[in-house]
């Protein structure tokens, strides 16, 4: 069998139902094999769009997202999605064509050492040197991508090798002697953690994207409600605990709620689950949660004690550990009144510092209101993707995610241009769900071309551009920390987004009146096919509250 056909058999054996990609010279054999392989292929308009779509697909479904690219520029265009998937632990497999083996190292046409240049940003990678390695490499790539701490895996296949004739046998067990993730969690440590919780008077449960990856949201809720443990989530973890819940403190970190950040600051015990103490969470490390002891549960042992030293480290799968921690805790005789003072304090912060903003006196749409309106118009029942910046933070604050895999954003890398293609991928993975993208007017133009893909394939995403005419978050920093010297943040003359949408074969709309916003949004959502909405919002609005970079929770402003 031709190796490229064997590749298709491997993909089918892995259950791949959709691939995002773009062909070129070096992956012609792959695309020839794809021609009648029976795998849905979405021809993207830029490989970066394909890579982010694969991420969106993976984040929405929990299955491995797959993107194809050719050699050279096709492969280098995938670098940002690969890095993004690494930072946010997204299970993805990237399959790139490479120039013929005889040309490797000669600076051949469209040659780029994608294997070499992605080494620091992949979970693992394979550079195929013998066509007989291909089936094994593909299965290992999928296994690595989805198990342990998920992540991107690259398989780089030279053109001549994918044309070679190989004996193909269906999938067998993978053989990765150097890869044995710990999933179980040490029972003694779990018991110790339960005791620490029982003894704590000011506990906080701090959950991250690891809960989502582990499909452990229900288990998390069980643990939190085994007592009245206050819960906060990172931007990656939103939806892991239902936002409307009374024990929910809101998101924590740079633009988190004061209740969440102050609770971290005063906690005596912090239980971190599937979270990695990013600088956007901790602020100034030396002043982060100074009174707390830390229980750190993570599948990646290298995350434990990386930034914040843990007192009770537990390595393993949250799905396995969290219920055991709950059971151990329930077996203890605890004093139910011991958290009353703590809740009193938290309630105080909640009352004193609710999330809020000053509404406009006229019809002008405040950006926060736009997020609230989307929540109302969708009833919260939607997958929401975003780009990166103010609109991302406001959506995280005001769209109350009640379930995991509903909130899809680029948390670690902070990639502008992520939202639209990620929505496309999420919609392909979840054809029966409503998929919305809240985009920035700056960000959206970075992968705008994928609107053509959405029109072509009838992928009915609803994109709401929060249009303030600025690179808003950068402008905010320039206003607050750089003496209002607005350097290169005014987007100037925008394209007419409505006409642009129409040019792409989508529906374009423009909303400018807050009074009708919810109804207008409902209309956009009810419109068939892809819709791009230009929502005109207040030009200079700041995202608050905020921990200025490098400062502590106590220094929150706004």
């Amino acid at each position, binding site marked *: 069998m031709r190796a490229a056909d064997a590749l298709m058999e491997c993909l089918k054996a892995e259950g791949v139902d959709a691939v995002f990609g773009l062909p070129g010279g070096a992956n012609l054999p792959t695309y020839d094999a794809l021609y009648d392989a029976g795998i849905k292929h979405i021809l993207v308009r830029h490989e970066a769009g394909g890579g982010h779509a694969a991420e969106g697909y993976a984040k929405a479904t929990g299955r491995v997202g797959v993107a194809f690219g050719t050699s050279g520029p096709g492969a280098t265009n995938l670098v940002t999605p690969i890095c993004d998937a690494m930072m946010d632990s997204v299970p993805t497999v990237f399959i790139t064509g490479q120039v013929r083996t005889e040309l490797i190292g000669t600076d051949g046409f469209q040659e780029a050492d994608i*294997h*070499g240049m992605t*080494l*620091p940003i992949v*979970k*693992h*990678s394979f*550079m195929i*040197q013998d066509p007989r390695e291909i089936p094994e490499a593909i299965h290992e790539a999928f296994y*690595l991508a989805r198990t342990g701490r998920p992540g991107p895996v690259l398989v780089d296949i030279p053109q001549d090798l994918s044309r070679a004739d190989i004996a193909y046998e269906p999938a067998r067990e993978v053989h*990765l*002697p*150097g*890869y044995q993730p710990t999933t179980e969690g040490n029972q003694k440590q779990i*018991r*110790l953690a*339960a*005791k*620490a919780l*029982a*003894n*704590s008077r000011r506990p906080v449960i701090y959950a991250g994207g690891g809960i989502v990856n582990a499909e452990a949201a229900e288990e998390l809720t069980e643990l939190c409600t085994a007592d009245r443990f206050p819960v906060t989530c990172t931007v990656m973890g939103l939806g892991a605990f239902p936002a409307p819940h009374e024990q929910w403190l809101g998101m924590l970190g740079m633009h988190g709620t004061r209740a969440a950040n102050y609770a971290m600051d005063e906690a*005596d*015990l912090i239980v971190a689950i599937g979270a990695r103490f990013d600088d956007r969470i901790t602020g100034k490390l030396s002043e982060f949660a100074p009174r707390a*002891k830390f229980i750190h549960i993570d599948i*990646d*042992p*290298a995350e*434990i*004690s*990386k930034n914040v*030293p*843990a*007192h*009770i*480290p537990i390595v393993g799968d949250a799905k396995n550990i969290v219920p055991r921690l709950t059971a*151990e805790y329930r*077996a*203890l*005789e605890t*004093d139910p009144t011991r958290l009353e003072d703590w809740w009193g304090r938290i309630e105080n912060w909640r009352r004193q510092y609710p999330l809020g903003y000053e509404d406009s006196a006229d019809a002008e749409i405040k950006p926060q209101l736009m997020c609230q309106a989307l929540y109302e118009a969708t009833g919260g029942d939607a997958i929401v993707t975003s780009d990166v910046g103010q609109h991302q933070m406001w959506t995280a604050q005001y769209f109350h995610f009640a379930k995991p895999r509903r909130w899809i954003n680029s948390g670690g890398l902070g990639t502008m241009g992520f939202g639209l293609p990620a929505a496309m991928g999420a919609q392909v993975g979840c054809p029966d769900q409503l998929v919305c993208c809240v985009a920035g007017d700056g960000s959206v133009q970075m992968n705008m071309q994928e609107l053509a893909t959405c029109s072509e394939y009838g992928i009915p995403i609803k994109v709401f551009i929060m249009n303030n005419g600025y690179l808003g978050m950068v402008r905010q920093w320039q206003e607050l920390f750089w003496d209002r010297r607005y350097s290169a943040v005014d987007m100037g003359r925008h394209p007419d987004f409505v006409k642009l949408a129409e040019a792409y074969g989508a529906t374009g709309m423009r909303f400018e009146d807050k009074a009708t916003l919810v109804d207008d949004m409902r209309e956009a959502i009810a419109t068939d096919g892809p819709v791009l909405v230009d929502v005109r919002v207040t030009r200079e609005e700041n995202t608050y509250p905020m921990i200025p970079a490098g400062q502590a929770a106590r220094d929150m402003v706004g």
Partner: protein
Amino acid sequence: MGEPGTKEILSLEQLEVAGGRRTGRKHTLSILVENKPGVLTRIAGLFARRGFNIDTLAVGPTDDDAISRVTLTVDGAKHPIDQVTKQLHKLVNVLKIRDLEPAEAVTRELALFKVSADGPGRGEVVQLAEVFRGKIVDVSRRAIVVEVTGTDDKIEAFEALVRPFGLIEMVRTGEIAISRGRSET
């Protein structure tokens, strides 16, 4: 600490930080890796990206064709060694890492010294080489090359002693190590 079901539980004050500490000494890491494309780059790149310094590095085959051994030394005063080894363990091609305790391992390094030998010091350099159980591996009218094996301390001591005679250049292999006793490194 009480058992589950008892009220006397555990004081949070009793909890101590686990991991992330600096040991303050040199660590010799003996690492078995699969012979796969880019494995050395992955290790070197990991150190560079995480801001760890490799003090010495030696790579060579093992008795198994598919596996190589990387021996590297890291300063435990500058980096938390547990973080270094945990990051290394994440590399799929890394099979085994052993942080060799100094007392439990034999370490050796080989160095070649090219010393100026056109002056009256020639005889003394030869004598020093003998004291260090070194070998004269090349002799010419103006220079001699001495091979010395031993621990890094011994090599550095020899270097200090021959430097006044005119050390032209020095080449070191980087440290290799093997565990003492019957068990495999």
